């Protein structure tokens, strides 16, 4: 492979992967927070009713 500008090619693909993995991490953290809140509210409703 022609290695001219190879460093910037690596930057490009790394940046793309970083954006996607960053979004996946955000989704995982948000899912955990939502699940915790859902469990808490369900137990509160059960206790009150």
């Amino acid at each position: 492979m022609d290695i001219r500008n190879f460093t910037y090619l690596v930057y490009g693909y790394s940046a793309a992967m970083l954006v996607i993995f960053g979004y996946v991490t955000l989704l995982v953290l948000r899912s955990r927070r939502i699940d915790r809140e859902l469990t808490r509210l369900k137990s509160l409703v059960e206790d009150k009713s």
Partner: protein
Amino acid sequence: MREKLILSLAALGTLLLVWDFNTIFLHLPDEALQGAIYRIIFIHVPAAIGAYVFYSVAVITSAMFLVKKDFKYDSLAVACVEVGATFTLVNLVTGSIWGRIIWGIWWTWDARLTTQLICFLLYLGYLLLRPAVTEPTQRATMSAILAIFAFADIPIVVMAIRLKNVRTQHPQPVLETGGLDPSFWPPLLISFAAVLLIGTALVLVRLHQETSRREIDYLRRELHAL
């Protein structure tokens, strides 16, 4: 069932992407003028087209929400917009890195680049404004209107390099004019398929979150009433 489907889509998409990277980095012929950096097209273009596909689904589901007032359409729209915005960001970042080498600058206020940035900002605005409206029906209605308005930018982005009286630095369209080497098509299509599969898996995860959020809203109202 839902989790299995998400995992299967994500795994298949990732496998396709890894296989495609092998072709892109090790088997494709070199480009005479640009050096290795031309290979960025195999993530830059599929990310843009993938984003437009998800925005298209979002505009259809937003219109359906306005007609039917069913919240499942609103959930699907927000999921598609979020994933589409992620791919638009990938497109902007990779394009900027390519521009740094080929044009010598990270950014220029060129017609294509500017309209694409506006597209990203419009959908980012959609995502940032949603939490500001607390009443669910009002939030979904306003979001649907904004999604339809934001989608109007996409034909402008597409046409920005096709109109004769618009001066642009961006490369002219090569996909439909036959300007692309025939050996570049398979990795480009595989990359596009991988983007769609991974994007669909992400949309399904986001859709489930939105359904859970509505359940949380319902439980809060129930608690308030007790």
